[in-house]
């Protein structure tokens, strides 16, 4: 177990900001959602890593990740339901076209 903690953290950072990039640039709602999952996942890694390396006696990070996964699942399900509903309505899931509630 001599892999330095910083390695994990750097990887998760790259993953997170890849997610940010995707979130900002993609037009497809599903792609945005994918980016979102990336970010969530990066955060999960951080929790786990910090738990393991910094407070190995406790399980806060572990459980946080566990619940985050559950919530992510729920959130994705709802998001996809909404996206499909939007698709039904406007035959399109481009985020730019969703301007009915603007202003």
């Amino acid at each position, binding site marked *: 177990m001599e*892999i330095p903690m910083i390695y994990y953290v750097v990887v998760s*950072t790259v993953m997170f900001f890849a997610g*940010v990039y995707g979130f900002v640039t993609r037009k497809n709602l599903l792609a945005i959602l*994918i*980016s979102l999952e990336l970010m969530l996942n990066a955060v999960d890694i951080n929790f*786990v890593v910090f738990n393991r390396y910094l407070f190995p006696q406790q399980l806060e990070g572990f459980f946080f990740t566990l619940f985050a996964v559950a*919530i992510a699942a729920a959130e994705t399900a709802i998001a996809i*339901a909404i996206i499909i509903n939007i698709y039904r309505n406007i035959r399109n*899931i481009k985020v730019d076209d969703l301007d009915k509630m603007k202003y």
Partner: protein
Amino acid sequence: MEQIANHIIFFLLSAVIVVCSIMAVTSRRILRAATYLLFVLFATAGFYFQLDYHFLGAVQITIYAGGIVVLFVFAILLTSKLGEKSDRISSTKRAWGLAAALLGALICGYTLCTHDFFPQFAADGEVDMKTLGHALMGMDKYQYLLPFEAVSILLLACIIGGIMIARKR
């Protein structure tokens, strides 16, 4: 020896995560993006295994890789044609996204690298399932019954919400 293997596995997983997450957000084919996501999630699970959180790794694979990605794939298949490429991203948008991402990565990386953590390498390895079960179902300090219940209610709400939203009117 084991150390070196561990390192090699770690670097492999890292490479997969870095490459696939970048591919996931840059690929113009949405189905491919989902696939890259799947790889990322698997690699993450690998990390968890490596850190001796086997239960978490299993959860990651079953829920994320098994559940969510499948949902994504269905959704993608429902909403777009196969082989359809998304539009090119406008350069200003890309510039903004790159700026945000790179700046963020820079600042975060700087902070992480300059911050002094005091890692204590975990000695005990694997977390025992019984401990987990007690922590999840207990009501004492460092036990998580309340969040557990909250999540279950959330999931229930999600089920109902999902049905409500997806229901045909």
